[in-house]
């Protein structure tokens, strides 16, 4: 299945994983191949390999997260790394210590990997300038969420056998979604045809330049789609004059059985979670046979194991 391996002189050269934008198609294929080979570890009775023994991995999360943080933590632990979680306030002024100082202090304790989630775009890049550790971006502002895009790509490749040539529809708040941003770049890079739809107030300026076709109706976006990715609608958006109400959003952009009749019969439905059932995605669909939402979660651990392994130089 994973036959798109890069040519022989390919080498993974990234010290940090900050963005999908930085990755080549060869890098993505290589990461997905590596993740696939690690996936089996999580289904063993003894879910542990010694690959990252003696390596220190810090989860530095400035935003609340359950799934992503646990996924990274499990990935580290299943490879015998020592993982630590730090939850910090996202505002440096409230905290009384700047981000740069926090990172410098962590660096002084010689960690091998720092995984950062932060509400401000570009923060992982800033952090990477102040530590010798490898930095992995676990989501920065409205910028990127590379590990999520990679696990989505892995899931599509598993289910469809390929990514190139597929029509992928991403529905929702594209502008505020780092998941959408990384996915547009990632799917585009791997040869898929990416369409986005949602209220026009949710479309960032010049989103076409990222490699997406904008559709003003959801019907246009999902027509003949192989993959539909629904995004979580943030509650507060209706107060930013971006949408009048959840109700209107659900009526015009919620994904339901009727929408799906336009897509390919074997369409798969994805969602980065957590789901607002009945808003962006019909509740039955989320649990139905076309939903691969829980496969995404499973693959998330494998992708993060691969990333930890690769930024550590691929040695074990």
């Amino acid at each position: 299945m994973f036959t798109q391996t890069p040519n022989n002189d390919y080498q993974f050269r990234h010290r940090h994983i900050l963005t999908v934008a930085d990755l080549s198609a060869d890098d993505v294929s290589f990461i997905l191949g590596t993740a696939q080979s690690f996936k089996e570890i999580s289904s063993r009775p003894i879910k542990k390999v010694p690959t990252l023994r003696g390596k220190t991995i810090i989860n530095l999360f400035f935003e609340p997260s359950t799934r992503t943080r646990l996924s990274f933590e499990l990935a580290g632990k299943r490879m015998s790394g020592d993982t630590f979680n730090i939850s910090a306030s996202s505002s440096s002024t409230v905290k009384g210590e700047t981000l740069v100082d926090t990172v410098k202090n962590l660096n002084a304790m010689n960690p091998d990997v720092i995984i950062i989630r932060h509400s401000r775009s570009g923060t992982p890049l800033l952090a990477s300038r102040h530590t010798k550790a490898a930095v992995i971006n676990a989501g920065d502002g409205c910028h990127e969420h590379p590990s999520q895009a990679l696990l989505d790509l892995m899931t599509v490749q598993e289910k469809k056998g390929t990514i190139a040539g597929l029509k992928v529809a991403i529905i929702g708040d594209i502008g505020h979604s780092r998941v959408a941003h990384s996915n547009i770049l990632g799917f585009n890079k791997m040869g898929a045809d990416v369409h986005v739809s949602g209220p026009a107030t949710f479309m960032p300026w010049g989103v076409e330049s990222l490699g997406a076709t904008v559709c003003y109706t959801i019907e246009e976006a999902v027509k003949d789609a192989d993959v539909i990715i629904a995004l979580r609608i943030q509650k507060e958006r209706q107060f930013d004059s971006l949408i009048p109400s959840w109700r209107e959003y659900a009526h015009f952009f919620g994904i339901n059985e009727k929408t799906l009749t336009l897509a390919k019969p074997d369409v798969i439905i994805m969602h980065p979670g957590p789901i607002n059932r009945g808003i962006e995605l019909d509740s039955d669909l989320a649990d139905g046979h076309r939903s691969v939402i829980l496969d995404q979660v499973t693959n998330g651990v494998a992708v993060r194991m691969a990333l930890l392994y690769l930024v550590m130089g691929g040695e074990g």
Partner: protein
Amino acid sequence: MGNSERILLRNGRIIDPLNGLDQKGDLLIDNGKIEAINFQGYLETPENCQQIDLNGKWLTAGLIDMHVHLREPGEEYKETIESGTWAAAAGGFTSVCCMPNTRPVNDSEAVTSLILDKARNCPARVYPVGAISKNSLGESLAPFGEMKEAGVVAFSDDGHPVGSSLLMRRALEYGANYDALIISHAEESSLSANGAMNEGPLSTGMGLRGIPSVAESIMVYRDIALAEYLNRPIHLAHISTREAIDLIRRAKDRGVRVTAETAPHYFSLTEEAVAEYDTNAKMNPPLRNIRDREAVRAALRDGTLDAIASDHAPHSSLEKNLEFEEAANGIIGLETAVPLTLNLVRADILTPLRMVELMSLNPSRILKVGSGGRLEAGGVADLTVIDPDLEFTYQQSMMVSKSRNSPFLGWKMKGKAVMTIMDGKIRFSEPESTLN
């Protein structure tokens, strides 16, 4: 460096946009005044006179930067009136206008007097700009009369756009009683709120909230409309967009009393400068795209823009070594304005005469301060000597400002102010280290 009463500057290329002169000559300074200028031959050397051969370097009326932030009172760790005026002198400026967003805000005679007190023995003249509204909150007018008497030269809520059109109307009206020029920071805040850079494909790619160009042009249009309706003058600060320039051009064509400035970064850089989340290129208005940059250049050439002002905005690493969205807006600019503007001269966008008009004559006319650009016997000896060919790399070690927040660090520059004379005294002359 010398401080003798008499200085004879020989062999200068005297650039005088007021009289349209650009020719070789000598200039004698005596007791703070220009004693004589001779374009034809050779001024006789009086006794006890320091002679300086300019070897064809440019000699101009002292440059005036009509838009700087000196941070005193209140944020002396970023800049003081003293350090800021040394930076001005090092950049070739004999006069600066300091914006009122200090702590406290300059909205009173007391703060104005404090600033002028501190400026008394400084190497550049300081012309304070008073606030339009009390505490620059945009609610009620500050006491224009009291501040004007104390010495402010104009009024602006720079940094805090006047959101209320009624208040802007009142400021323009009330200003008539005191011959008070209003300087507008034109920004429609509801459109720019939480923005960190110019809105466009790059802001989308970087995941940053954008500040659209229309946030500037909408407010520029409002300000022009009010000035036209009331037949009052208005000056528009730090213009950055093509759309605003089009509006200003059309307003000038129909006789509206509008003047406008831009800053060197808007004709030198584009939004690409922030692509690596470089907070030293973060400012408001933000760096725009290449079409805006070209429009700014064209407008400097054709007269739509009247002045180049640095918007010198010192910040320390406390405000800049942060997440991009958390970092403060603004860059220092006093020491790079001349070299960056000389780039436009070399690109044949500006003539040397036009450059001096933009940096000395026009600011002097708009603000009604200084010599009015006059270079003639009896005039105040505020003078700048520019070596247009001096090549140097802009480095931390040569920065005179207290702050270091410049996107031009490491740039190779060509041309520099090499001597600044204010009130007949040499306040700055280029150290040998740069000359070598």
